[in-house]
């Protein structure tokens, strides 16, 4: 914990209310390792218990939306990689989907398959890393995270051979994808998908019933379903609270209606359920990958109507959204007929999922705040934009 601002508050608070006992005001972050970036929480502690928590954002703010409005539509594509830098391919997809709605484009079948394959691989490596980070935050120093990163590396190798970059992929285009799969890529991907369950089996055998994990996470940071819906929480965090809402099933964007997979739902809405929902989602992603890698057809990868240069959608607006690994990632675009969007808006899931951080942490200890924040799954590149 940062001791930069560590002061005993007088008996009477600044707003005149009497303070019961001694309360400590602590500024946790922005360089605290548990924040996974530059993020700060203003805590007020009553003993060890959290009495108030105010998240402070903006350390990584660069006004992504303004930059998006002063460049061309395609010019923003590589910049979407930098939002949630763990999941550049799903960011690309969400943006491409919104622009396709705006301009009336349709990606060909092969491109849709490639999008599903890359998005589900992204989900695998995001959830594996998140599980690793969460356990790291709980004091399982090193091992689970390194196991997860070993698997992530294999998926990043696939991304590199497909797009040329491990993390900043810049791969999707409006109406398709940038380049076709290289020779032998599907075979490589199949190998990764076939070997992944062995890692998951080992990971789960070591951790699911682990006493420390259970006592640190069960009953901690409980999020009731009704509150989660009202606060716009999405993704695994929402489903861990027992709400069955997965955009792959609800919107059936792309070709998700062709695959058979289940949506894991939690019971209690605590940190353990959020961990478990992600582990089970990885199993479902593997099912989708199996089917997609088996069925992918030959064909073009770009809509012939798509224009890379001189792209000017007709005036209008569109909101496109996908189920990114962190929740609902949406792009809202307004075109005035010029080469730049008039309005370019990112609906960032991990920013909105932080709405309830204070509610989840109140009454818990500082050490639990670290675990609860870890279970939200934030990336500051997306939170601050």
């Amino acid at each position: 914990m940062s001791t930069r601002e560590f002061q005993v508050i007088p008996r009477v608070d600044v707003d005149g209310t009497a303070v019961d006992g001694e309360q400590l005001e602590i500024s946790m972050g922005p360089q605290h390792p548990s924040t996974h970036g530059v993020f700060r929480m203003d805590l007020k502690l009553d003993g060890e218990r959290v009495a108030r928590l105010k998240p402070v954002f903006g350390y990584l703010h660069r006004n992504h939306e303004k930059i998006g409005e002063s460049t061309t539509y395609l010019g923003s594509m590589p910049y979407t990689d930098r939002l949630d830098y763990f999941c550049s391919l799903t960011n690309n997809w969400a943006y491409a989907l919104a622009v396709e709605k705006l301009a009336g484009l349709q990606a060909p079948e092969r491109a849709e398959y490639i999008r599903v394959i890359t998005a589900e691989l992204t989900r695998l490596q995001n959830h594996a890393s998140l599980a690793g980070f969460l356990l790291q935050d709980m004091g399982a120093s090193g091992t689970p995270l390194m196991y997860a990163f070993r698997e992530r590396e294999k998926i990043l190798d696939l991304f590199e051979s497909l797009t040329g970059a491990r993390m900043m992929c810049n791969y999707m285009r409006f109406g398709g994808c940038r380049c076709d799969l290289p020779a032998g890529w599907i075979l490589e991907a199949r190998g990764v998908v076939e070997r992944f369950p062995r890692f998951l089996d080992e990971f789960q055998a070591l951790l699911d019933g682990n006493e420390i994990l259970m006592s640190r996470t069960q009953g901690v940071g409980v999020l009731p379903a009704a509150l989660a819906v009202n606060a716009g929480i999405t993704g695994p965090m929402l489903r861990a609270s027992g709400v069955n809402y997965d955009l792959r099933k609800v919107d059936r964007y792309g070709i998700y209606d062709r695959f058979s997979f289940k949506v894991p739902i939690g019971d209690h809405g605590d940190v353990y359920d959020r961990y478990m929902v992600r582990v089970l989602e990885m199993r479902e992603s593997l099912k989708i990958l199996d089917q997609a890698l088996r069925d992918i057809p030959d064909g073009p990868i770009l809509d012939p109507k798509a224009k890379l240069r001189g792209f000017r959608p007709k005036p209008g607006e569109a909101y496109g959204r996908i189920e990114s690994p962190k929740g609902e990632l949406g792009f809202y675009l307004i075109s005035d007929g010029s080469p730049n969007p008039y309005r370019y808006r990112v609906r960032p899931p991990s920013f909105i999922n932080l709405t309830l951080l204070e509610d989840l942490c109140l009454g818990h200890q500082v050490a639990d705040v670290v675990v609860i924040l870890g279970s939200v799954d934030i990336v500051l590149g997306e939170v601050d934009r």
Partner: protein
Amino acid sequence: MESLEQIKIWTETAVAGARLQLVTNPGPSGQHSLLVDNDHAAAVARFFLEDARLRLDYASNVTGIDWPEAVLQEKRKVKQTIEGVEREIEETIERRRPGFLEVVYHLYSMALKQGPVILRLRTGDRGAQARLPSLTPIWRGAEFQEREVFDLFGVVFEGHPDLRRILMWDGFKDFPMRKDYAPPQESGAGREPAQ
């Protein structure tokens, strides 16, 4: 999902005095929206949330749009009699549109798995009248997003529980997402002078 015309009729029946206006979207996405008057915005939002046919329990995306004052050109056909012959002439009319800020809510129903219904609110101008009722008491999901609109566009949300800047620092003066925002020329400009 019912058509917006139907939703408009339901809403105007249920919320006395509410005036809704259909805003059509000329683009291929077909996402049209409903413009609601500010006095009844909270009541309309409450109706959207509670009505059994709509159950719009999830405010997904909340964002602002800046529309500065502009001169719009409209073409229309007029009949004129020139030298005794009646002709149809296309005439360009210039219309001044006063500036305003707009806030857009993309609403979905998680319970009924339907949506979106797009709700728009408009401020009176871009200065003193840039005030709107906050919908955070109805959808908590709007809390941070309305703060962001306040921070970057300068819309004051009345009834918001915690309206502070969220991405820019507290001493910052301007609203960076407005179209006429000029970035500071030298580093440090825009900050409050050190005291």
